[in-house]
C-alpha cells in the first residue's frame, strides 16, 4: 500500500509515459519528492528554481486542493490519491 500519484497527460512525456506512480509517503512533499527523484525531468515542470511548487500546477489530495489543506505538508496515508493538475489552454486551434 502506498500513496498513488496520478500524472496528468501534459506531464506524462516527462514521466516515461506513465499514468500513475505509487510511493510510500507521509505527506505531499514526500510524495512529490519521490516522484521527481524517479523522473528528474518532471522537477522543473512542477517546481520553480527556488523549489516552490509552481502556481499553475495545482495539487489535490483525494479531490481537495492542498492550498486549502496544509499545502505541501498535507499528510497522506496509504490508499490516498494525489492529483497534479496543471493549467492547459488549448481549444481553438
Amino acid at each position, binding site marked *: 500500500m502506498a500513496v498513488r500519484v496520478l500524472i*496528468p*497527460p*501534459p506531464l506524462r*512525456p516527462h514521466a516515461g509515459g506513465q*499514468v500513475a506512480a505509487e510511493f510510500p509517503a507521509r505527506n505531499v512533499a514526500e510524495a512529490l519528492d519521490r516522484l521527481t527523484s524517479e523522473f528528474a*525531468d518532471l522537477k522543473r*515542470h512542477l517546481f520553480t528554481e527556488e523549489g516552490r511548487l*509552481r*502556481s*499553475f500546477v*495545482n495539487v*489535490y489530495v483525494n*479531490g*481537495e*486542493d492542498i*492550498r*486549502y489543506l496544509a499545502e505541501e505538508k498535507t499528510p497522506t496515508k496509504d490508499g490516498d490519491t494525489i*492529483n497534479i*493538475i*496543471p*493549467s*492547459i*489552454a*488549448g*481549444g*481553438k*486551434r
Partner: protein
Amino acid sequence: MATKVETPAGVKATENLTNEEILRYSRHLIMPEVGMEGQLKLKKAKVLLIGTGGLGAPLGLYLAAAGVGQLGLVDFDVVDFTNLQRQVTFGSSDVGKPKSEAARARLSNLNPDIQVQAFETKLTSANALELFRDFDIIVDGTDNFPTRYLVNDACVLLGKPNVYGSIFRFEGQVTIFGMPGGPCYRCLYPEPPPPGLVPSCAEGGVLGVLPGIVGSIQAMETIKLILGSGRNLTGRLLLFDALEMGFREFKLRKNPKCPMCGEHRTIDKLIDYYEFCGVRGEEAPAPDLKVPEIMPRELKARLDRGEDLFILDVREPHEYQICNLRGHLIPLGELPRRVHELDSSREIVAHCRSGKRSAEAVDFLRKAGFRKILNLKGGILAWSDEVDRSVPKY
C-alpha cells in the same frame, strides 16, 4: 400547476414561438425541464462564444440547434486544412474563409430563427468589455493563456458567467467561473505557466473528438445556466481523460485573497495580458533564439554538390514517419544524453518541423562545444515550400 402553458404567462409565451419553432423544438417542449418556459428563456438568451475552433464547433452547433436566440462569434482566424480534423462546423469549401463568418453561415443555415453575429476581430483588453456587455453568458473556447485571463477578468468585472473549457491532447477541463460567490480562473490558477513550458495544441496535438466532448459539456452547462435548472459546474472542476476514459471532479474554492474576485481586489481594470503571460506580440511563445542558420535552398545546393553534411532531425519518431529528410533522428528531449552520437568535427545541419526546436538544439550543442552547426531555417515546412513540394507539410 401541471399545465403551465395555460397560465397567462404561458399564453403570452406561445405568441412568441411560431408554429415552425414549436415543431423545431418539440423534443424540448415536451420535456417538463425545458417546456415552453425554458424554450423562451433560450430564445431570449444572448451567448458570446470566444473562439469558433475545436470547442467552438460543438458549442455553436448545439447552442444554435437548441434555439439560443442570439449567438455572438468572436474569432480573427481563417479556416485551414488542419482545422477540419476536429472543427466540425467547417467544410472543405470553407478553407481560406474567416472562421467567424464561415461559422455564422453554417449556424444560420442550421437555425434561421436565431440571430448569429460574427465578430471578425481579435479579443483584446481594448474591446473585451464592450463586446461582452451585450451578452448574458460568455463561453471560453480559446487556445492561449493571455486570452483565458482576459476573458476571466472581463467576466468578473462585468459580473457575467464564464463557461470555461480547455483541452490538451486527450485531456479536458471544464467548469464555470464568474458566478456570484463562485471562484474565478485566477482562484484556480493565479499565474500562467512561463512561455514554452506547456506546449500548445498546435505543437502537442489534440485528438479530434476531444474538443467535441468538452465543447458539448460546455454547451450543456450553458443551456442549464439559461434554464436555471439542475446543478451546474460552479465550484467544481471536471477533468476528462479520454485515454483512460473517465471523469474526475475536484472542488474549486473562491480564493479570498484572489486579486481579481477576492475581498481586496487589486485588479480593477483589464491589463496587458501578453505581458502578464510573458508573451510579447502575437501568440509567439519563447523569443527566437539567435543561432547560425542555413536556408533550405542553400542546403539543397550544398547537398547536390556532394558536400559532407550531417543532417540531424530533432523531431519525434512519429513525426519522422510522416516525412523526413533522411536525417539522423535524435528527439530534442533525448539530445543531452545522446550527444555522443554526434561528431563535432563534421558540419551538422539540425532541423525540425518549423525550425523552433532545432534552434534550441543548435543552441544546446553550441553550448556543448559544437562549432560547425547550423539550423535549417523554417524546418521541414520551408523545405516543402522552397525545395521539394513532394514533402508533406503537417
